[in-house]
């Protein structure tokens, strides 16, 4: 029997939809785990709910949990924008690093100046040489002036973060706080969703173990199909249950609210920044909405013209008929 070999995997990854590739790999693992369980069972040992069934659970449901968990982790991006103490500490540490970097950059510049002077002495005509030197010195002097000026202004870097709640507009802060609340709600419902799925799986497996341990399963196919049938039956009743519908509905709603409010928070920040050169998604959406409305009006006008022309044609035909 042919098998998918390791060297086929890259080719498969290129050729298949990514979902198929992932599910294919997971199916291979699931089969291996089920076969291992069967071998153990066939050797006369009783089955018990343990690591192997737990690992099977992960393989079966990872595909569904992952997108939600990525969104949960996405919260870190939002957190990074907030003035938490560890962030302030890390900024302080960064300042030491930046100063060290600046020393390094200065010495690197001296090094390059030296190298350039050496090569310019050999290949560049004297007029060009003085131009380059003039530009370099002028630029260096200007940068130093800006730096001196900046420090004279006594701009306290960390103050920006401690002033954070006062810098943001009211609306921006509201979106931020609301996004955090939504994230909390979403993560709560996600935990309940995951628990419901896990409990249902566990119930199905306990039924399967009980049936299997009564020595009713005669071969691997029967063993595998019983596992699938019992699990399917349990999941079918879970997925249609009142509580599941409520949890799934609430989870999706709070997830969507979290995404929307986070976007609106970022949009408000950008829209209130006078040097932001980009249009936000909200702006572009509004433009698309107006284009769509205009397009419909245009179509309406075209239809109206078409009807009028048809009426005009009809009248002409009638008049001609009358003259005859």
């Amino acid at each position, binding site marked *: *029997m*042919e*098998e*998918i070999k390791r*060297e*086929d995997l890259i*080719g*498969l990854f*290129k*050729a*298949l*939809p*990514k*979902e*198929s590739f992932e*599910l*294919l790999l*997971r*199916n*291979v693992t*699931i*089969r291996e785990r089920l076969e291992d369980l069967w071998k153990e069972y066939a050797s006369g040992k009783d089955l018990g709910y343990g690591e192997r069934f737990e690992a099977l659970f992960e*393989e*079966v*449901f990872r*595909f*569904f949990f992952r*997108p939600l968990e990525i969104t949960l982790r996405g919260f870190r991006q939002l957190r990074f924008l907030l003035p938490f103490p560890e962030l302030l500490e890390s900024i302080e540490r960064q300042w030491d690093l930046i100063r060290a970097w600046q020393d390094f950059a200065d010495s690197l510049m001296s090094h390059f100046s030296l190298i350039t002077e050496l090569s310019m002495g050999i290949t560049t005509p004297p007029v060009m040489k003085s131009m380059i030197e003039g530009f370099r010195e002028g630029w260096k002097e200007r940068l130093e002036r800006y730096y001196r000026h900046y420090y004279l202004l006594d701009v306290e870097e960390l103050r920006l973060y401690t002033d954070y709640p006062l810098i943001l507009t009211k609306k921006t802060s509201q979106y931020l706080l609301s996004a955090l609340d939504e994230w909390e709600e979403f993560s709560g419902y996600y935990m309940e969703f995951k628990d419901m*799925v896990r409990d249902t799986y566990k119930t199905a497996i306990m039924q399967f173990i009980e049936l299997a341990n009564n020595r009713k399963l005669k071969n691997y196919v029967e063993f*595998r199909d019983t596992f*699938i049938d019992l*699990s*399917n039956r349990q*999941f*079918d009743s879970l*997925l*249609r249950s009142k509580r599941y*519908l*409520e949890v*799934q*509905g609430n989870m*999706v*709603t709070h*997830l*969507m*609210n979290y*995404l*929307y409010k986070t*976007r609106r928070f970022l949009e408000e920040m950008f829209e209130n920044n006078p040097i932001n050169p980009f249009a936000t*998604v909200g702006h*572009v*959406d509004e433009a*698309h*909405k107006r284009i*769509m*409305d205009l*397009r*419909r009006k245009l*179509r309406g006008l075209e239809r109206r013209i078409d009807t009028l022309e048809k009426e005009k044609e009809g009248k002409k035909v009638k008049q001609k008929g009358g003259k005859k």
Partner: protein
Amino acid sequence: MLDRFLVEFKPWTCDFELVHKDWLFGLMHFKSQSKYKIPLLISYAYINRPYIMDLYEELSVVKRLIDAGIDVWMIDWGYPKRSDKFFNISDYIEYIDFCVDLIKKQKGVSKVTLHGYCLGATLAVIYAALSPEPIKNLVLQAPPINFHTNNTISLWAMHIDPVKISRAMGNMPGELLNIAFLLVEPVKLALKYLNVMDNLENKRLVKNFFHMDHWIFDSPAVPGYVYEEQIGRWYHKNEIIRGEYDVNGKKVDLTNITMPVLAIVAEKDNLTPPETTIPFLNMIPSKDKKMLIGHKGHVGLTVSMTSHKKIWPEAVKWIAERSK
């Protein structure tokens, strides 16, 4: 290497010409030698790609229709982007109207057969109820018209807030819809690839399996406003079957459906079970109506050997007899 298992993925087997392209939508005309006067226009579901009707030469509904001498046209609803968020159902209905007009002019006929599949059938019913004059026959494949059914997907749809989704995501992403469809039978999915892995020697099976996977995961997004209408007005309020749905203020009156109607449904359809269709068939006044029931699922109705042996010959015969 990979070519042991796969050949290049090609979505269509029949030749066609793209006769019209309008922003997002397109109209395709399949090359054929038609024997019958009445052309057939297919309105496929906008949540998937229409090439499932012509994915495999031996199981192609389009080829079967062409071979029977029917002139086949098909609407491609495209891949909506964020900028298409503001499309709504009325834009889809107007495009069906545009296509019907264009076909009538090009073919010199006054009527066409309208063939809708899944949510494309919902659009076909809406159009036929609003503009019954140019519709000679109405063919509905797995049509969701009564949305208050007890299947898992309907129950889920009734428990989510579509406005929150479109507000956060712009459109309903195809990937998210796919996860929902797959979560209906999670354990089955975990073992879906075992059969293909056990039959790697069977090149045709492997090729067909992965071509189907390409189709499954090639899911366009649903424009945000369309999704709001679909979930809010169709699933939540069941407005179509209740006679409460309107397009730009014009009521969708199902009693206008007096033309011959053929409904093709699948017994094991977990997305649009027969209950989504039966109440509709019972309430329309058409004197010539028929229901064909396949023993497969939603997709199997189109691409299974059984359907092509039992359902499609009868369906094509029904269409041909009414296309003279």
